[in-house]
């Protein structure tokens, strides 16, 4: 050191040692806490999150409802469980955008240079996602109830449907975590995400019964995972779901998790 000034205003810190290594779960919960703090500091993110589904619900119900199902209230009975599926899949896009912008800022470089469970930051993102899904879905359900939707299976059915919804959100979430890791511009993640999701969501049984669609399209709609999810959601909320329907609905989330969780770890840790 060539020129140390006066030592009076030098900051000399006492060495602080490392506490015992925390568990992977503890690491993940800390990131979950971070996600929860974001709701307090950036409440406007909830706006993005709930406005689109509210708009969709109201527009579809009142513009198309009468023509499709006789009356808006009757259409709501068909449409509401499906719009919940659409809501969580669209929400996952915002989560991928958030990750993409976090990565651009160097924050994850700090996380990566810490001696923590490598997947913890993503587990934390998922905790945030689950909270977001629950908030958005509750708002949509409330609007539905006001507009005349009645879940035949009552509260237990709704709770079961919400549990399935979280499984769906968890599975689809990995797609956008991978996109967030691969694409460094958040708006590109969004464009890419919606380009992929719009056909998938519209060519499903969320909005209409596929009976009137051309054969080739029906063939796709019938195996579209989004359709399978909507069918199971409808069934759970109306107390008519079969185990087979529920099983079919969770195939895609399970496969996505099995394939994309290791992919995420690999993409994140590659150096």
């Amino acid at each position, binding site marked *: *050191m*060539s020129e140390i000034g006066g*030592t009076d205003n*030098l900051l000399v810190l006492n060495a*602080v040692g490392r506490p015992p290594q925390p568990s992977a779960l503890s690491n993940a919960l800390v990131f979950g806490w971070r996600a929860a703090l974001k709701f307090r500091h950036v409440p406007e993110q909830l706006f993005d999150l709930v406005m689109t589904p509210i708009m969709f619900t109201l527009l579809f119900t009142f513009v198309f409802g009468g023509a499709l199902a006789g009356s808006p209230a009757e259409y709501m009975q068909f449409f509401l469980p499906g719009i919940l599926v659409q809501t969580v899949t669209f929400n996952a896009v915002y989560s991928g955008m958030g990750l993409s912008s976090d990565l651009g800022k*160097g924050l994850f470089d700090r996380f990566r240079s810490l001696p923590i469970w490598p997947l913890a930051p993503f587990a934390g993102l998922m905790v945030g996602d689950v909270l977001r899904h629950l908030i958005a879905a509750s708002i949509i359900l409330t609007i539905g109830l006001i507009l005349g939707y009645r879940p035949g299976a009552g509260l237990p059915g709704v709770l079961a449907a919400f549990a399935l919804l979280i499984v769906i959100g968890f599975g689809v979430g990995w797609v956008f975590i991978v996109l967030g890791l691969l694409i460094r511009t958040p708006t590109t993640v969004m464009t890419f995400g919606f380009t992929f999701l719009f056909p998938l969501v519209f060519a499903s049984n969320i909005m209409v019964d596929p009976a009137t669609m051309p054969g080739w399209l029906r063939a796709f709609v019938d195996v579209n995972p989004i359709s399978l999810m909507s069918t199971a959601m409808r069934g759970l909320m109306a107390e008519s779901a079969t185990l087979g329907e529920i099983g079919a609905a969770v195939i895609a989330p399970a496969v996505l998790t099995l394939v994309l969780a290791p992919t995420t770890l690999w993409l994140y840790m590659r150096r």
Partner: protein
Amino acid sequence: MNQFVPTNPVNARVENPAISARGLVKTFGAVRAVDGIDLDVPAGMIFAILGPNGAGKTTLMRMLATLARPDGGSATVMGHDLIEAPADVRSEIAMTGQFASLDEDLTGQENLVLLARLWGFRGRAAKARALELLAAFDLSDAAAKQVKDYSGGMRRRLDIAASLVVTPGVLFLDEPTTGLDPKARKEVWQMIRGLALSGVTILLTTQYLEEADQLAARIAVIDHGKKIAEGTSRELKAATGSGFLHVALEDPSRSDEAAHLLGERLGHVPQRNVEGGGLSVVAGSPQDANEAIAALMDAGIALSDFSMGSPSLDEVFFALTGEADRDATNDGGKA
């Protein structure tokens, strides 16, 4: 001038270096961003890696901080092998990147509590550690403010505080004062000096010669992925030449002519100062300098100022990176 041989008196005595790297290489496609760098950083030292943008400083640091995998060579950090035991390395280091590695949406205190919890401090202990660091870095008043509302200097201080939740063996600082105003820069310098006194080994990258000169006990100069010199700032200056003659011309348009004359007289290629009209050249002795000035006057080139002095680190740097050589080639063509 690139054949300057670094003298390494300190390294010979280092038995347990904080960082020891041999032949580190990192390639991006066809580009060898880091091209075989050896580095020995003794424990407790402030060590600067000096180089222009794109020289490979950040890549070198990212490799040492386990963020990038070397394509060749080996290194130990605090005795742990970089490639075999990256997790052990991570538990002994902290890195403050070039871009603030903070969560802008959270408050300063929340950022530190987050990191303290990740390190394993629980509930109250995490908060206590966060408050302690905020106080030490003069950020207590801003503890509850979101980081996005911090000034550049505050952000940098918080960023460095975030690296000290657990006292690291080695602290990596990537361009710690880039973008700061002079006052904030001085504050960060004071902080870095204090940390070194606390026993933390600090490896910092910088493109500011003054910063390396002010802070670092040793400096490695890097250009195009290679280490081209290493030593104390005094050694680097001495190696370039003891006496430097600086002249300022009254008529800058005659600088080509003056450069040619000076080069001829003194046997070294003069460097041009960026602000036009100024030339600096190695002069063996005051007598030689005197004769060179006389030669300029004989040729009718009027000087507005001249001085003898040791080279600034800027001049050392340009001499080492060969910028002056490139200029000289152009001059040669014209003369």
